[in-house]
């Protein structure tokens, strides 16, 4: 394992970098987009609710691989040229957003109706009540499942390997095919994934304690 790491360190470091970049982009954008979709699902507007619902049902019910393949094969052919990394990251972002939307929605709905009514009864708009009263409470509730989803998305980023995304899994495949040392090739990247996910897990646990 050490030998593999020494011999292929530049490939592994590059894979590590691409995995972190893809995960980070996905985390940031799917958190923002997931919150927007969740809001579409809860605001008092039937059409918006429907749109949010349809989004979630489509993207969480299709395997991630198929979504990514769509962006890798169909989009470049008929729409715009994008590389494997971009296609994979967009697919991962859309897929993860659906799960984050569901987490945020359940958080919003678990804040009691009375909180919204209390705020509205003082003359606050729906938006103000959401922003100052309901959402802060919802975020506190959803930290544990959100952390779960963040860790999942980092591991799911290994989907990039299928579309030449140069991530850790891609590098492991390449190294294994050269060295025939399959076990150690994948073992090395397993350790590297843990190096990314563990600090995030601990950070989410810290956040949970801090907000409690």
């Amino acid at each position, binding site marked *: 394992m050490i030998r593999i790491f020494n011999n292929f360190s530049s490939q592994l470091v590059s894979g590590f970098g691409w995995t972190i970049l893809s995960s980070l982009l996905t985390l940031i954008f799917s958190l923002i987009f997931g919150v927007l979709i969740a809001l579409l699902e809860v605001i008092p507007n039937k059409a918006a609710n429907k749109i949010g619902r349809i989004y979630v049902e489509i993207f969480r019910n299709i395997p991630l691989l198929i979504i990514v393949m769509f962006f890798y094969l169909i989009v470049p052919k008929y729409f715009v040229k994008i590389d494997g990394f971009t296609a994979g990251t967009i697919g991962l972002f859309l897929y993860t957003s659906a799960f984050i939307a569901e987490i945020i929605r359940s958080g919003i709905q678990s804040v*009691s109706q*009375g*909180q919204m*009514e*209390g*705020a*509205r*009864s*003082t*003359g*606050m*708009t729906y938006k*103000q009540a959401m922003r*100052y*009263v309901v959402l*802060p*409470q919802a975020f*506190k509730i959803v930290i544990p499942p959100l952390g779960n989803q963040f860790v999942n998305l980092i591991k799911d980023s290994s989907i990039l390997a299928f579309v030449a995304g140069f991530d850790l899994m891609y590098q492991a495949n390449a190294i294994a095919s050269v060295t025939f040392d399959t076990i150690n090739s994948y073992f090395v990247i397993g350790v590297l994934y843990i190096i990314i996910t563990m600090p995030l897990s601990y950070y989410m646990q810290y956040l949970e304690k801090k907000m409690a």
Partner: protein
Amino acid sequence: MSMVEFHDVQKFYGKFHALHSINLQIDKGETVVLIGPSGSGKSTLIRTINRLESIQGGKLIVNNQDLSNPKTDSNRLRQDVGMVFQHFNLYKNKNVLENVMLAPRIVSHIPEDENKRQAMNLLDMVGVADKAQNMPAQISGGQKQRVAIARSLAMHPKLLLFDEPTSALDPEMIDEVLQVIKKITSSSDMTSLIVTHEMGFAKEVANRVIFMDQGQIVEDDDSSSFFKQPQTERAQQFLSKIIAH
């Protein structure tokens, strides 16, 4: 001058007819108590006044604004119509002081130092100034309800709605809340409508008593004659049961 006018107001929850042709007028400065068995529509009626519940028929005028008109701005209306809830509904993510200061800051845009001074005065008036920095979860039910009252007063409402303000409280804490409500309603420019099961309190503060049953107003009388002898048999029956224990 009337503050609230119901003209033949109807309210439905799906097929359930919750309010039947309500006709009611409340004048400025009045303290009206609304009583009746549970499920009679008291809470529904009070919640239509600040539009937490919509109405399906008739005309409802509150503070000269027509609530039957969908164009009427609910947020503007609610700045003048405060509400105190059975379960307090204090913002759990904000401390006591912030609970009182939030709406004046983001709705009325009052300068921060003036807002704080006003909030501390109100908390002092309801007797919880020493809890200003506590979170709602750290104070008692009676204190929570007094903070909720301070929060609604911070918007300088012309009309205050109390929806069973003491029903969720321990018996020992009911009095401290009722004393605060009494202090507020005794002011001649405050109009209030109170849903309550506290008959002694009702007798003490109310100018007028409205008795509801099955979504209808059964009796509407001044307080002293109502408590001496209600006119309808249904109200007599209700009163005798409530006073008996």
